[in-house]
């Protein structure tokens, strides 16, 4: 059911735009909050993993991120549409409000992220589109490489403020901007 209410991000008053941290010329990383965003958890029904993967692969306009065994985050599609399209193939749960996605991008992105995740993000082994479930600063993070030097970090909504504070502090030495 489409609704016309104003969605308020938990980072609305936290992720303030501007330039922060050390000044070494161009900012080391650029941060932004993807909001509002549409997210659904999609888990294959028994025996439907292959069919689900195929259905997701051919779905134009949907962003599919691996999120565990036979499990995905499906972005950018309204939940009702997701449920209808994947009926019989997957169990779907709306998470659009439950997770906050922070985009981090820039030449120093790996130096910032390596302060939190033990996952090797080197471009040789972590290609664009690949996701990992990891922990950063004691917070569970779903991490996806979305560009050459760009990543999306998806965390539970309740942790987003705390996580933002930690992340920006780790970016300070390189200088960062929030857009």
């Amino acid at each position, binding site marked *: *059911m489409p*609704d*016309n*209410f*104003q*969605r*308020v*991000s*938990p980072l609305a008053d936290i992720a303030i735009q501007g330039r922060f*941290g*050390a000044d070494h010329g161009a900012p080391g990383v650029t941060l932004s909050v993807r909001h*509002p965003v549409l997210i659904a*958890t999609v*888990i*294959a*029904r*028994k*025996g439907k993993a292959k069919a689900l993967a195929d259905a997701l692969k051919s779905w134009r306009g949907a962003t599919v991120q691996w999120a565990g065994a036979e*499990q995905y985050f499906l972005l950018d599609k309204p939940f009702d549409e997701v449920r209808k399209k994947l009926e019989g193939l*997957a*169990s779907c*749960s*709306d*998470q*659009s*409000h*439950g*997770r906050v996605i922070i985009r981090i991008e820039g030449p120093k992105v790996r130096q910032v992220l*390596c*302060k939190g*995740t*033990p996952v*090797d993000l*080197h471009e*040789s082994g972590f290609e664009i589109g690949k996701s990992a479930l990891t922990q950063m*600063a*004691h*917070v569970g993070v779903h991490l996806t490489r979305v560009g050459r030097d760009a990543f999306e970090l998806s965390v*539970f*909504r*309740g*942790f987003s*403020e*705390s*996580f933002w*504070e*930690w992340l920006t*502090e*780790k970016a*300070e*030495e390189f200088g960062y901007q929030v857009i």
Partner: protein
Amino acid sequence: MTGFRLDKGGLIDRKAPLYFTFDGRAFTGFAGDTLASALISNDVHLMGRSFKYHRPRGVISAGSSEPNALVELREGARKEANTRATMIELHDGLVAKSQNHWPSLEFDIGALNSLASAMFVAGFYYKTFMWPKSFWEKIYEPIIRKAAGLGNASKEADPDKYEKAYAHCDLLVVGSGPAGLIAALMAARSGARIILADESSTLGGSLLNENEEIGGMSGHAWAIGVIGELGSKSNVTLMPRTTIFGWYDDNIFGAVERVNDHVLEPSPYEPRQRYWRIMAKRAVMATGAEERPIVFGGNDVPGVMTAGALRTYANRYAAAAGKSVVVFTNNNSGYRTARDMNAHGVHVEVIIDSRKEPNVDAGGVPVIRGGAIVNVRGGKRVSGVELADHRMIPCDAVAMSGGWSPIVNLMCHRGAKPKWDERIAGFVPPDVGDRFVAAGSAAGRMLLSECLADGARAGTLKGKTPAIPKCRDEAFAVTPLWWVKESTGKAFVDYQNDSTAKDLPLAAQEGYRDIELAKRYTTAGMATDQGKLGNVNAIAILAEATGRTMDQVGTTTFRPYYTPVSFGAIAGPFVGHHFQPVRKTPLHDWADELGAVFVETGLWMRSSWFPQAGEDWLASASREVLATRERVGLCDVSTLGKIDVQGKDAAEFLNRLYCNTFSTLDVGKARYGLMLREDGIVFDDGTTSRLAADHFLMTTTTANAARVMSHMEFCHQAHWPELDVQYVSVTEQWAQMAIAGPKARATLQKIVDKVTLDDTGFPYLAAKEISILGGMTARLFRISFSGEHAYELAVPADYGNLVARSIMQAGEEFGITPYGIEALSIMRIEKGHVAGGELNGTTTAGDLGLGKMMSSKKDYIGRMMAAREGLTDKNRQCVVGIRPFDAADKIRAGSHILKKEDAPSMAADQGYISSVAWSPMLNMWLGLALLSNGRERHGEVVKIFDGVRKIHMFGVICDPMQYDRENKKLHA
């Protein structure tokens, strides 16, 4: 030479003078100096006092093994005790102080300990402080505590930041001397990802300290070339100032990078230190070798140092440790020092070689063959040496070399032991497989050409090892001399602990023959340097005293950390309010606006009460209860765990997880569920609703949300993989609020679209997706924890604050009040609903009065074990209500319950009070208790004993439900 700074040479920048103070005196050094080299160049050799005898001490080494020159670095909150002067990079404004003396470094009363040194032998503590027993706590321990330790810690909070980080590589090279550099170079040229780490401020290792020749240029120039090439490659990470301190499972290395220890004050944006975990596919240990002292009388007098250190100060720092040097050696290293010092214009008096027929170029310096220094003359500075034949030789510095020990520590961190190599008279590293190999002098290769060849081999990850550059070798030969027994003065084996040569035979004589026992008994090899210089000498002396070989005695256990690691680095950024993450509910802002006081519940911040002017927590919570019970209240319950359970077998899955049945639940209805552990004890509870035939929404307690989720994962994956069921946490998707009280229905009706909230349209335990506020999707549940006519409303989290505010507005005409979890807790106790105090991991369903929920028609987790005799015993403690006999008394949670006439004892214990609350409805304290055979004892007067406050009172046992026992309000 002017003073003790050589006129030329060294890797210091003479155009960059740096000003610093030591013990309040102002000095000048240069960029490139360490504190130790700067002090030496200023003719300061007395840098500290030793631990036990308070002996004057100076620098022994030029690196991280330094046991003596430990200083307090910086002042105030940034003060750091026991910092090695040999590792402190000099910087402008540096302030350092010497340690372990009173009243001053020059004149230290503690030195009197030396006079009583006969007393301070090995095992002194064990022998002295044994009796009388009563002296231990009052007299001995305070004295020992006062004497223990060296420097003083700052008592202030550390103002600097620390962080943690992870790194990955194909090859980690530890150490940047010739072997490390060429290993890194070979590997880097193949395109592999390389990390080259070195504890020093500058890469180059021994090539910074020694006069070498590689590829037709100086060793240092060659190193600069290699480092330049490495630095230009994107696949190489150079990490100077980084100590690899430990080797762990799966080739993971721990490291500390001293990012900002070399500046007065770090940038506010940068950490002082960074704690690394480096995951290396392969690693090379190119850590070099450590020169050993020789054990002879006065081998600790300031001015005595290892031969390698003496020439390092001259070659690298252009600092002369003396104007007249005597060399004492059992290998060729001493000759190298003599030649280097000569080349720098420093007079070398004589080389005393313990070997009878050495064959080395002495560079024109006279050599005494088969000789030994028996005692060093001098107190705070060397004034001369005395030989075995009683000859006296005046000098102001002594260079000693007892041979070289490969630095094998890292490779032994996972339990492998090094092996003794007679040829080099040193322990060489064990073979730990090809993922971690030793190269260079760390592997016992004592010639430069061997180091280069070895390093090149280790760095060749595939294909043939390329040719190495030509170099000049310095011959290596050693004949062990461990201890000059003719010495009459104190001859130190372990400087930091003041262990002498006599302590080890004494330990052996007293039965401590094992090296691990001898270490503890003599303290040789303990403290901050962990015996880096002294251990091999200690092993040799113990071997001799017990008639064993070096291999038979063996080494003590090598453990991380290689050098001390600060607590700051270990804690990283997780201090203060960053200690753990904060989790906020979607209604946080709404509650905050209304003045909520928040309480930590796990990581969550929950609104606890909403005080008005002048109210304390109890007054506030009591008012919130009254308002809710009389009118209507709104409470944030978003923290309850919510798990979407879907799939063809979802109902069957729940049947097996819960002790009661869910397959019979109608779509659109909620049911209270109870989950047991495998052992039959209650695990968790909550309401679970059926949203569709194949879709359930489970709720869990706040505390157990994650645990229930992993329980489900385990059960599904391990027990019942055949079930077609999918589940995922949706806790954070929903803002959930309880609306409770006689006016709850009227309030909600105002914001609900279409549905009529009467008992037919929305009966008790209805659970449905509805629409509110003219089009917002929401879920409404008619469930109650407070015992009132109540609902829980869930809306997508981004709308939470908006909806809560709308409900407050809708309820204004009815007198709506926000209530927190204190009021919630009071109401559940009034109603006898169990929660954390009763669901405490010891209670069964029967104990909680929920035995009837356990289905007899199906199997479920915990069924078998719940039937054990002990879990069905009628005398088990079960939940009852309890009130004070005198309504004015205050009962307290944790108090024990006794029969009325019994005195408190373990044997007489009948149970305890698990939850209490002040009931504003009944105007008294009341509680829930776990009482033996409690259900049969309603009405009994019991004794309540509060062992903490040592008070007792009488109480009355009653039904757990103490308010609205007919549940009229619930169904109103």
